[in-house]
C-alpha cells in the first residue's frame, strides 16, 4: 500500500506537469495581461517592452519551461495584478476557502446523506400526479397567500411559501420526502448566483439576521492562518455562503444516496439483516448506507475538490476572500503567474483528494482491497 501511495505521488508530478503545460497553452486565449498592467496611455513601445520582459512574446513552450524551471525551485513569481509574491497570495487566501469548503462539504454530506436515506426509505414509490400537483400547489398557494397578505416582495413570498410548505409537509413523511426531492431540484436548476443573492436578500437585507458579505472578524491562530471559527461574526458570516455552496452538492449527494439506497435496500443481506432483528436505523445507516458509499465518496471527493478550487461564484457573491475569488480576479486581469501557480495547486488538491478517495474505497469495500494487494497477474 505504501508503494501504491508512492506510485500515485509520482504520477501526480506528471499530472501537475501536464496541467502546467495545458495552462500555458491556454493563457494566450484568456487575454493580454499587459492591457491591465499598463495605463491606458502607455506607449506601444512600452507595452512591447513589458511584453518582452514578461516573456509573453516567447512561444508558449518556452514560457512553460521557464515556469517549470522556477516552480521546481519553489519560485512562482510575482502577481502581475497585485505585485505580491504568488505563493504568499495563495496561502493567505487559503484559510478562508478551506474553512468554507470544509463546512459546506460537511453540511452537504450530513444533510445530503440523511435526506437521501430518508427519501429512499419513505419515498420508494415515485410521487403520484396528485402528490406532485399538491406539492406544486402548496408552494405556489403559500406564495400567493403571502403575497396577498403581506404584500411583500417576490422573494419573500417564495421564501415564506417554501417555509410553510416544508412545515406542513412534515405531517406526512412520505409526502415530505417527495417534497424534498422536488424542492431540492430547484436548488440545482438555478444558478448559484441567484441562490446566493436570494439568501442575501432574505437573511441580510430583509431580516438583517446575517451578514451579507465577507468573513466577519477573523482571528490569527498561528502564523498565516486566520480563522473565522472563533468569533461570532465569523461564524455568522459563514452560514450563508456555506449553505449556498452546499446546496448543489447536497442535492447531488442526496439523490445519489437515494438512488443507491433503493437498490441496496432490496438486497438479500438487508433482508437478512432484518431477519436478524436489527433495528431500522442500524440497517439503514450502517448496513445499507455503507453499500452505497463508493459513488458517494467519489462524488463528495470531486465536489470537495471543486469547492476548494472553484467556489468562484459563491465566493464572488459573498465577497468571500478565498482562492476562488482570487482566481476570478486573476483571470479577469490575466494574471498569468497567479493562474499558473493556482492551477498547479488545484491539480495537487485533486490528486490528493482522488488518492484519498481511492484509499477510502479500499477501506469501505474489502473486496477491492484484496484485488488491490494480490494484484492481477
Amino acid at each position, binding site marked *: 500500500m505504501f508503494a501504491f501511495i508512492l506510485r500515485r505521488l509520482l504520477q501526480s508530478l506528471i499530472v501537475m506537469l501536464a496541467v502546467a503545460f495545458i495552462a500555458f497553452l491556454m493563457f494566450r486565449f484568456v487575454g493580454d495581461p499587459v492591457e491591465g498592467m499598463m495605463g491606458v496611455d502607455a506607449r506601444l513601445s512600452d507595452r512591447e517592452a513589458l511584453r518582452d520582459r514578461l516573456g509573453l512574446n516567447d512561444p508558449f513552450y518556452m514560457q512553460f519551461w521557464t515556469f517549470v524551471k522556477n516552480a521546481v525551485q519553489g519560485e512562482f513569481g510575482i502577481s502581475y495584478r497585485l505585485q505580491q509574491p504568488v505563493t504568499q497570495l495563495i496561502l493567505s487566501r487559503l484559510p478562508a476557502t478551506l474553512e468554507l469548503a470544509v463546512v459546506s462539504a460537511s453540511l452537504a454530506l450530513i444533510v445530503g446523506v440523511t435526506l437521501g436515506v430518508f427519501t429512499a426509505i419513505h419515498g420508494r414509490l415515485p410521487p403520484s400526479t396528485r402528490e406532485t400537483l399538491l406539492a406544486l400547489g402548496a408552494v405556489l398557494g403559500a406564495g400567493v397567500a403571502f403575497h396577498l397578505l403581506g404584500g411583500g416582495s417576490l422573494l419573500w413570498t417564495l421564501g415564506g411559501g417554501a417555509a410553510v410548505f416544508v412545515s406542513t409537509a412534515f405531517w406526512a413523511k412520505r409526502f415530505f420526502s417527495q417534497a424534498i426531492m422536488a424542492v431540492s431540484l430547484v436548488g440545482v436548476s438555478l444558478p448559484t448566483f441567484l441562490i446566493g443573492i436570494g439568501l442575501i436578500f432574505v437573511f441580510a437585507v430583509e431580516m438583517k439576521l446575517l451578514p451579507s458579505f465577507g468573513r466577519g472578524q477573523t482571528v490569527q491562530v498561528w502564523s498565516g492562518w486566520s480563522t473565522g471559527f472563533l468569533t461570532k461574526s465569523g461564524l455568522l458570516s459563514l452560514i450563508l455562503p456555506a449553505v449556498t455552496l452546499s446546496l448543489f452538492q447536497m442535492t447531488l449527494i442526496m439523490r445519489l444516496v437515494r438512488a443507491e439506497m433503493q437498490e441496496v435496500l432490496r438486497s438479500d443481506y438487508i433482508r437478512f439483516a432484518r431477519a436478524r*432483528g436489527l433495528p431500522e436505523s442500524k440497517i439503514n445507516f*450502517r448496513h445499507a448506507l455503507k453499500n452505497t458509499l463508493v459513488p458517494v465518496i467519489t462524488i463528495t471527493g470531486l465536489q470537495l475538490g471543486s469547492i476548494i478550487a472553484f467556489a468562484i461564484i459563491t465566493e464572488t457573491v459573498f465577497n468571500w476572500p478565498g482562492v476562488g475569488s482570487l482566481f476570478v480576479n486573476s483571470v479577469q486581469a490575466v494574471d498569468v503567474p497567479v493562474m499558473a501557480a493556482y492551477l498547479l495547486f488545484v491539480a495537487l488538491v485533486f490528486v490528493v483528494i482522488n488518492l484519498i478517495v481511492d484509499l477510502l474505497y479500499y477501506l469501505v469495500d*474489502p473486496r477491492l482491497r484484496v484485488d488491490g494487494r494480490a494484484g492481477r497477474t
Partner: protein
Amino acid sequence: MTETSDVRTPVLSVRDLVVDFPLRRGNFRALHGVSFDIAPGEVLGVVGESGAGKSMTGAAVIGLLTPPGRITSGEVYLQGQRIDQLPEAEMVKLRGKRIGMVMQDPLTSLNPLFTVGQQLIETIRQHLPLNEAEARARAVSLLEEAGIPRAAERIDSYPHQFSGGMRQRVVIALAIAADPELVIADEPTSALDVSVQAQVIKVLKKLCESRGAAIMLITHDMGVIAQIADRILVMNAGRIVESGPVGQVIRHPREPYTIKLIDSIPTLNRDPGAPVPAEAAAPEAAAQDAYVRVENLTRDFSLGGGGSFFGRLFGGESRIFRAVNDVSFSIRRGETYGLVGESGSGKSTCAKMIAGLIPPSSGRIFVDGADVWSAEGLASRRRNVQMIFQDPYASLNPRWKVGSIVAEPIRALKLTSSRAEIEDRVADLLRKVRLDPVAMRKYPHEFSGGQRQRIAIARALSTQPAFIVCDEPTSALDVSVQAQVLDLMSGLQEEYGLTYLLISHNLAVIRQMANDVGVMRQGVLEESGPVDEIFDHPKAEYTRMLLDAVPDLDKVA
C-alpha cells in the same frame, strides 16, 4: 380460533396462508392456503418441489416477503399471538430475538462490507445484554458450535473470504445467536459436507431440547429430515400435499407427488438400475487422454486484518492462509471427476483456478493441453470451459432477463444470430431443467433458490462446452428435479462427450455421476481414485469418516 383448547400452545401456527404476487401480467399466487402447526421442541421438516413455496412460507412467517409479494389472507400465530398483522416496529422486536431465520441463499445473506465478527457481534448485542468483549466471546463460541475451525482467528474475515459452507454456518450462527423460540431454517445445510452437517443438526436439536424451541426445517435432503425431523410436510405448487410423522410419510407415502419424490432419492450405494457412468461406456483408449490436468496447484490468500484503520488500509498484519495445497489430479476426456471434502477445504478455490478466474499461487493447469494461465490457454478456454457457480444467484446479472442470461453463451460464441432460433433454444433448455419457458421474461430475483440454480445450469449447458466446472450444481434442488438435472447432464455427456468437474457434498450424487473422485481436506487432496474404489474401500481416515456420516434413510425408525 381459540388457543386455549390445546394443551400446549404451538410455537408457530399458520392458518390458510395465501401469498400473492401482483405482477405486471397478472396475479401470481405463490401460496394457496397453507396451514400447519409446530409444537414446542418439535422439528418440522418441509420438503417439496423446488419452487413449491417453501421459502415463501418461511418469509411470510417472519414478515419479510419481497415486494410486491404480500399476505393476502390467512393468519400466523407465534405462541398464540397473532403476528401477521403486527406493525413493522413490533415485528422488528420479534425477529432475531424470538424468531431466528436462516435464509436460503447463505452466500448473499451476509453484508459484504462487514466482517463476520462485526455482524455477529452486532446481532448478539442487539438481543442480549452483553458488552463488546462478551459478545465477541459468544460469537466465537457460536461459530465453533457451527463447526468453523479456528473461529477466533477467522472471525475478523469478510464474508467473501469464507467458503460457501462457512458462510452458511455463519448464517446459522446468526440465526440462533439469541436462542430464539422458533427457528426457520431454509436449507441450512445445502452447502455443508456431511460431517459438518451432522454437527449443525446437533446444534439445532440441542436448541429444541434445551429451550423447547420449534424448528421449521426446509430442506431437500431427505437424509437430514430423517435424522432430525419429527414431522414432515410435503409441499407442491403452493399447497401442502401431505404431512405426518416422518417415518410414516417416508415409508408409506400417499400422494403421487410424495411417492415420486421419495423414489428419486439417490443412494450412496450404486443403484443397479442407474445409468452406468461413462467410464464403462468409454473404451480404455480414452484413459490416457487427460483432458484436464492439474499439477501441484497451490493458492494462498492473505487474511487481511479487519482491525485498525491502518491495518485495514495497509494490511500490515496480514497472515497468509493456504487454501489449496499442492493439489494434482487429472480428468479424462468425456468423464466426470468428483471433488468432495470438508467445507472450506478449497474445492471452490480449485474450481475457480481451473476455470481461470483466480490465478494460482503456484502450480499449473492444463485444459486440452493448453496452460489455462498462458495467453493461448486463455483464448481456448473461452470456447471450451463453462462454470456453474456455487452461488447461482450471484452469478446471474440482476439486471438481465433470464432469457438473455441463458442465451448469452450462445450469443458470445455467435453460434446463431437469429433471434427466433436463440429463443427456441433457450426455451428448450429451460424446459430441460424443468422451468417454464415463460421464465425467459423474468428476472433472477423472481425465482426460488432452486430455480435460480437451474437457470445457471441451463446457461452452462447452453453451448455444450467441452468442459464444465460444476460447483455444487444441485445443492438447492429437490431430489426429483435433481434427478432430472443429473440425467440431463449425463445425457449430454454421452451425446457430446462433455467433461465435468463436479463438486458436491452429496456423496450419492458423486457416486452416481463421477468416474473418479478426489477427497479434499484443509487444502490437501487426501486421496484420489476411481469412485467405486474409494467409496467402497476408503483409505484415508477422513474419507471413511465422511462416508460414515452420511445420513441414511433406512435409519428412519
